[in-house]
């Protein structure tokens, strides 16, 4: 089986990717936008729809496969990366996608997530991060901010949240990105880039749960505030943001600071230039941790993309090499090869 995914010959449209099932998310849920952006992007990723598989776990996000007119597998809580791993290893010709949430991936599925990243399994993981358990009706999640008051933390949560981008980087994911449900164009571009990446692609999508955690990302999505709070990362471009695009990130040692390039003291040449392909991961960690400091904007875009051989390529190659060396296995020989005797 080829390790290359067959490319499309017929031009599909977003509608081709829409299944016959009624979408059952709450009205106003951020998931609708994510679904729409995926359906809009998929005609352009160059893969036949029968060669695409969506795998999910449990949670609101995990209903996703039902709404995509591709092959789909709505599995059990946390296990989507493991199921997707087995599918991709056994069928390298497929384009395998995981739809998951912050509870599904960062909590019960944490182990599968880090190991999929470590092994560079060629799967694409879209994590819808609403920082809350929605399907179980409002308990705090592993990405909820400390002090979060929910049904299970009436006096505020006392544990520290995961930083998903940092976790993915730490687990050696070869593609780490972040986007927003309310920024359709940006989200489409990131989905396209994830599709093009060969290796584990992790995309954190900040997503509003208008029922249990409404407005969690309002600062990043409201017209008035977003320009000052969102930093759009672009490869080999200086990190500029703000209404006037006059604010920039300067790297002061390991510490990112905000500067005004029009204040007479700084210029655009002081601004940190983003390099997605930076060989060393340290700068991408600094980007991931900018959310620790409320004075800094939240970066969206691609934190890091590096290329190294994928696990499924490795296993295919090993099979080819061993077969070349030993010849295609002959079962009868296998039985008779060790100490035998005849009666």
């Amino acid at each position, binding site marked *: 089986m080829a390790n290359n995914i067959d490319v499309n010959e017929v031009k599909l449209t977003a509608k081709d990717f829409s*299944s016959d*099932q009624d979408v059952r998310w709450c009205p106003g849920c951020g998931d609708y936008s994510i679904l729409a952006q995926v359906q809009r992007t998929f005609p352009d990723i160059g893969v*036949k*729809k*029968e*060669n*695409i*598989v969506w*795998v*999910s776990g*449990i949670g609101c996000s995990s209903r996703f*496969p*039902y709404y995509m*007119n*591709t*092959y*789909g*597998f*709505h*599995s*059990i809580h946390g*296990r989507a990366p*493991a*199921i*997707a*791993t*087995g*599918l*991709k*290893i*056994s*069928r390298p*010709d*497929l384009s395998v996608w995981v739809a998951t949430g912050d509870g599904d991936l960062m909590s019960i599925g944490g*182990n*599968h997530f*880090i*190991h999929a990243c470590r092994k560079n399994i060629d799967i694409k993981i879209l994590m819808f991060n609403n920082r809350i358990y929605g399907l179980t009706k409002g308990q705090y999640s592993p990405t909820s901010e400390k002090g979060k008051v929910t049904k299970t933390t009436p006096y505020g949560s006392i544990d520290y949240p995961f930083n998903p981008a940092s976790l993915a980087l730490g687990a050696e994911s070869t593609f780490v990105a972040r986007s927003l449900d309310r920024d359709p164009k940006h989200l489409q571009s990131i989905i396209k880039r994830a599709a093009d990446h060969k290796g584990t692609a992790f995309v954190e999508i900040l997503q509003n749960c208008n029922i249990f955690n409404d407005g969690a990302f309002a600062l990043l999505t409201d017209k008035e505030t977003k320009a000052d709070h969102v930093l759009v990362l672009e490869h080999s471009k200086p990190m500029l943001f703000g209404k006037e695009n006059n604010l920039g990130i300067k790297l002061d040692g390991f510490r990112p600071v905000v500067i005004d390039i029009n204040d007479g003291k700084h210029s655009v040449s002081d601004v940190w230039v983003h390099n997605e392909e930076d060989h060393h991961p340290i700068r991408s960690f600094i980007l991931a941790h900018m959310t620790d400091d409320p004075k800094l904007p939240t970066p969206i875009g691609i934190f890091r993309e590096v290329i190294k051989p994928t696990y499924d390529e490795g*296993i295919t190659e*090993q*099979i080819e090499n*061993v*077969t070349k*060396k*030993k*010849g*295609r*296995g002959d*079962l*009868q020989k*296998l*039985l*008779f090869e*060790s*100490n*035998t*005797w*005849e*009666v």
Partner: protein
Amino acid sequence: MEETKSNGKTVQSLNDVTVMFAGDSGDGMQLTGTQFSNTTALVGNDLSTLPDYPAEIRAPAGTLYGVSGFQLHFSSSDIHTPGDSPDVLVAMNPAALKVNLKNIKEHALIIVNTDSFDPKNLKIAKYDSNPLDDGTLEGFHVIHVPITSLTTNALRDTNLSIKEITRSKNFFALGMMYWLYNRPVEPTIEWIKQKFAKNPDIAAANEAVLKAGYYFGDQTELFTTRYSVESANLPKGVYRNISGNEATAIGLVTASELSGLPLFLGSYPITPASEILQYLSTYKNYGVKTFQAEDEISGIASAIGASFGGSLAITTTSGPGLALKAEAIGLAVMTELPLVIINVQRGGPSTGLPTKTEQADLLQAMYGRNGEAPVAVLAASTPSDCFHMAIEASRIALNFMTPVILLTDGYIANGAEPWKMPLIEELEKIEVKFATEVEGFFPYSRNEKLSRPWAKPGTPGLEHRIGGLEKANITGNVSHDPDNHDLMCKLRTEKIQRIQNDIPELEVDGPSKGDVLVLGWGGTYGSIREAVDRVRKSGYKVSQAHLKYINPFPKNTREVLNNFKHILIPEINLGQLARIIRSEFLLPVIQLNQVRGLPIKSVDIQNKILEILGGNNGK
């Protein structure tokens, strides 16, 4: 017993012998035992082995809990167990002697390495005085051999370190035993040359020590008798010696070939199942893909993914791992995907006895899931039977689109026996048909077996979604409808029941009607068979039936059971099959239960049968 003279020594011909090699866990006893078994197999004896080793890799030297043993029963006739009690004990240190003394036969032959009976080792083995001279061994035939010094002597002209030299002492013991039981040293010399090809000094040393042991036997006056065990009269064919785990691995590769499907194994290392993963990872040129997962759950989840993709998907584990896989097995039940789950049972509960055998996962395999989640449950009965049952498990999984649990156990997984190998071209193909027609495709429509179509990704027009939520009959859409759920639960159960039409009937060995039927399952086959044989030899009538298919039972099971006054069920658990038989057939059964981490002794089953017969019935 025949006696002849040769080279000044008496040669005694024996029908069967049980030997126990015992020493420290670092003494190489498993290797010694395996070599003796392989050579014994080559000279044509029937044999059965029982490796028994501690959970510690290198327990502190000389301790009682660090003793590693390898029991081997070989014979000139058909045998089925590694022997109840050894006739010969090779004890490399005081601890090995102490641990095994209570289990060996009266008047057994004991060969001890006297060099290790020093004050330090005696103390570690908790001996207050030296058992070699305080009367402890009275009644036994004890042979004192300074194995360590003789080994050192044999290697005095080499440049090896003391540590390297003493490490080869197991080959001295092996050589001596080869002489004593008239076996050739050549197969082991061949093996040494291959094994230590990269280290010719060690290879030469091991060979020299092996030969030294052999010649010692010949020259010493300590041995006055030599034994011979003629080759067994086995059915014609080509044989090899095989362990259960290797047979399982080869069976799976065979199933892959017979079905034309690529093999995928998702697994996490666990004693005593890891070897299956190890074997399969060497079969790359058979197209086998093995994935050592991050945990047990990922092991099965990756296999379910591969099954969705159209592979013959396998996961292997032992009891604790089966517990972790329970939720995912339920997913495979709901999604009706073919999947083979192999559980090499060990002592439980919890971590239990990782290196010891048990049959206590039957109820877990049958019922250990949430909801009504029926799966097929099969059990292999001997090491070589693992080959056939691995193929059977694959066949049923693929034909019925269902998870199948195959139970083996630590005893048959590690134990070995001669195996008459099949000709691959004579094995029946496993028919697999993937759905390709768009017209009339429904993911949850069913054929006469009640199995649903398998449409793998990549097939144009058959894009569909499956998952763990209840499925609507035929369309496979998500459904919370009460009547549909009721129907689907019943359909899934009925599907498993219909496997009855595709499996062999339960065979009865002996009269099909009578006073006593000994009913077993899994790895107790050999012990029961030997017990039944012995009881018959003393003139009683007794029958045996062995279940290899437990869910569903073979069609004629009720009929078979109804023909006997008493049903005895020996199990290495506290009565799990007995419980199922009672509830399924409303029959009283007599239990014989031991959970000692060891195979049940034939003699215990024999006594129980005689007790039921009351000493005179059926004669």
